[in-house]
């Protein structure tokens, strides 16, 4: 027995006698995980969340979530003698009086921005590779919830210092709550403890931020990881990889080192960011005063899309029978998020319906092999990006010297014109990439060597690709094409599901329109022969001597 094992054996034995851990270790210590950089994006989210928990705990040792008014007498001169809430004053103290306090505040805030950013890219990775398909729909929905929780955590968190910037955001939230029909004013008074802003909101946001939301996130993340662990990670298709296996490296020691190491890399990058780049300098914004506002007031980046929507939604407010319905506020403020979450959660079911594919999938899709899904994803990104830019329209105006009014108008139109355009363009690009792949399989790779026949005809030599690459390019599943069931069966009785199958068939056709299917064995054989024939044709006509290349071999012997 090695020295390590000897040292570990006694405590392990004690645990084992009580918890049967050896059985768990036996199967899980060498559990295989597939290796790809894009599988690490979710880890960035996980690790930044851990950094948030640790840095947040530090901050709670010093932060006072109280709106009691105090007069600041700390070391930051421009605010000395200024009345402010205890929350703001304690934030200033953390920044200016406590060693490492400013660093920790910055770590916390950078980590929060990174948390949501990494969840977003992770979500897109999962989306574009189809990893949300059966059996992972539950995890996908958990992920959507986690994203929303991340937004909630961020918003409640940056409102805690009670500074002018985040306070303006709180005012906007009050305006949104007010726009809720029937119960808006009551909800607003209940949440704020009276007329805005009241004295309670900061301490209420505090408990949401340090207990309720992180508790939920922890629970959801745990479920997310347990399900992932149990179902095993997906993998890219390729030689040796099937729907029934996992190919990769063992948890211990490889992934312990790689993933464990990545935790330290992520936290290290966050800390270095916090050492060198200032974030959320609340002392510049000043304490929150409901009658003050600063130019360039923006929420944190992940709320930008909602603020952008608030900016560009036209003035749709109606008074009907003495009651006011403010759709201009309700739609962006109240409905956008639930609709977005609903679309996210519903997508796996929608795709299942369109493709008729209900099988288990553990092999990923290359994005080009599902052009419509990829197009939808890019369309969503463009839509989101336009809204995000709208949220910063005053900055875009200043930087590019365009009147802000023009930007708003452009966005109001562009939001509905550009995403479908992006969808069409992306789908075309994906299909073109598919064609290129098939060319590579059927004709081999371009060598860049040009030959001329004696008749003066030019052609490029192709060289065969190796079998591993060829397999990788043809490993994707063949799309299922669906036809509607007949309207009347043999006895002439109407099919009750006819309308549904017709819809499905239409959606299916739209989904797989123009997609390049991989060839069947016969088709491939024919193609290769054809290509060979072309080349042989040329050879018959005698290639000019130029370096003694052998005639290209067929990729598959006939």
């Amino acid at each position: 027995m090695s020295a390590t094992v000897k040292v570990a054996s006694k405590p392990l034995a004690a645990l084992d006698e009580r918890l049967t851990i050896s059985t768990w270790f036996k199967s899980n210590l060498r559990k295989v995980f597939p290796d790809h950089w894009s599988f690490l994006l979710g880890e960035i989210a996980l690790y930044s969340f851990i950094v948030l928990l640790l840095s947040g705990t530090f901050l709670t040792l010093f932060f006072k979530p109280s709106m009691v008014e105090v007069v600041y007498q700390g070391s930051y001169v421009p605010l000395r003698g200024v009345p402010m809430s205890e929350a703001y004053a304690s934030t200033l103290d953390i920044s200016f009086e406590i060693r490492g306090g400013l660093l920790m505040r910055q770590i916390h805030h950078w980590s929060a921005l990174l948390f949501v950013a990494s969840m977003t890219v992770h979500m897109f990775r999962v989306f574009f590779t189809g990893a949300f398909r059966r059996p992972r729909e539950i995890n996908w929905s958990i992920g959507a919830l986690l994203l929303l929780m991340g937004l909630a955590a961020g918003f409640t968190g940056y409102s805690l210092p009670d500074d002018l910037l985040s306070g303006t955001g709180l005012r906007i939230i009050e305006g949104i709550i007010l726009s809720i029909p029937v119960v808006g004013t009551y909800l607003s008074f209940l949440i704020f403890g009276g007329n805005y802003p009241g004295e309670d909101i900061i301490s209420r946001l505090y408990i949401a931020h340090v207990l309720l939301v992180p508790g939920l996130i922890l629970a959801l993340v745990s479920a997310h990881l347990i399900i992932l662990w149990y179902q095993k990670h997906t993998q890219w298709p390729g030689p040796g990889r099937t729907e029934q296996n996992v190919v990769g490296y063992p948890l211990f020691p490889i992934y312990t080192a790689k993933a464990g190491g990545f935790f330290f890399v992520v936290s290290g990058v966050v800390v270095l960011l916090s050492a060198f780049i200032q974030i959320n300098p609340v002392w510049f914004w000043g304490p929150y005063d409901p009658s003050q506002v600063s130019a360039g007031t923006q929420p944190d980046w992940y709320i930008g899309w909602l603020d952008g929507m608030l900016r560009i939604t036209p003035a749709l407010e109606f008074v009907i029978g003495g009651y006011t319905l403010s759709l201009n506020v309700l739609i962006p403020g109240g409905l956008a998020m639930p609709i977005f979450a609903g679309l996210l959660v519903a997508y796996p079911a929608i795709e299942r319906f369109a493709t008729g594919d209900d099988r288990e999938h553990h092999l990923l899709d290359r994005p080009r092999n599902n052009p419509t899904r990829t197009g939808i994803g890019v369309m969503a990104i463009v839509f989101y990006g336009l809204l995000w830019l709208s949220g910063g329209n005053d900055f875009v105006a200043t930087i590019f010297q365009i009147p802000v009014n023009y930007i708003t108008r452009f966005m109001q139109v562009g939001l509905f014109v550009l995403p479908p355009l992006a969808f069409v363009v992306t789908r075309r690009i994906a299909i073109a990439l598919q064609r290129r792949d098939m060319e590579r399989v059927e004709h081999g790779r371009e060598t860049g060597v040009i030959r001329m026949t004696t008749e003066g005809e030019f052609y490029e030599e192709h060289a065969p690709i190796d079998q591993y690459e060829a397999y990788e390019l043809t490993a994707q599943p063949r799309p299922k094409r669906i036809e509607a069931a007949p309207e009347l069966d043999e006895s002439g009785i109407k099919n009750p599901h006819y309308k549904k199958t017709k819809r499905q068939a239409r959606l299916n056709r739209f989904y797989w329109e123009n997609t390049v299917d991989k060839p069947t064995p016969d088709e491939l054989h024919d193609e290769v022969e054809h290509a060979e024939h072309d080349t042989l044709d040329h050879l018959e006509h005698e290639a000019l001597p130029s370096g003694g290349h052998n005639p290209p071999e067929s990729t598959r012997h006939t």
Partner: protein
Amino acid sequence: MTALLAKRRHPLAAVVVMAVALAALAALYAAFSPSSQASTTSAQSTQIEEGKQLFLVGCSSCHGINAEGVIRDDGTVLGPSLIGVGAAAVDFQVGTGRMPMARTDVQAPRKTEAYTDEQVAALAAYVASLAPGPAIPEPEQYDPELGDIARGGDLYRTNCAQCHNTTGQGGALTLGKYAPKLTGVEPVHIYEAMLTGPQSMPVFSDEVLTSDDKRDIIAFLKNVQSEPNPGGFGIGRIGPVSEGLWVWLIGLGALIGAAAWIGARSS
């Protein structure tokens, strides 16, 4: 060449003619350009007279011969009337280079001054002589050392931050107008801007925002601009927009790079 022609022109004649012409041009330019020292003014010319001369040359085409303003045929204003704007307005507009405007635009941007300090003073004196208006403040009125920074901050956030941003980074207004950055602006010009309300900026008269209040604001501005960024690079001090940009570019960029390195096969 015939002998006649050869006699008529000295080889250097052309050179001499050129030199004389150039000298004449130079003299004319020197006499009429705004940055000339008008060395011909006699000791009796008052500052107002000098200002009037400068005004006629450099300003009257838009503001009228008697500074009464020029309105175009379609009713829009080419240059507003300067009667009653006071020396402070002139000192601000010309002293920050905003006037003369390089071209008609929604707003006059700050640029290199076209006049020396003495010329600016002369122009200001001339305009002030037309009608009573806000005067150039005394140095104690705008000396940042004498102002209360904290109180100035409070006043600034209430009266100025909504256009100029809490750290003076400026901001967008409608239709291409903007509130400019306040960095690198001389205290006297800050005072005069508040006093005279240039272009889109409103007026903050001394009766409401007193001279002391203005001085406090100036003290605050100068302090916040000279303040280091304790958290590191200030990245523009404009808040979440740049923070979001950097977290994506540097934060996520570096980490995705790290992920690519981790996932890559070692050679």
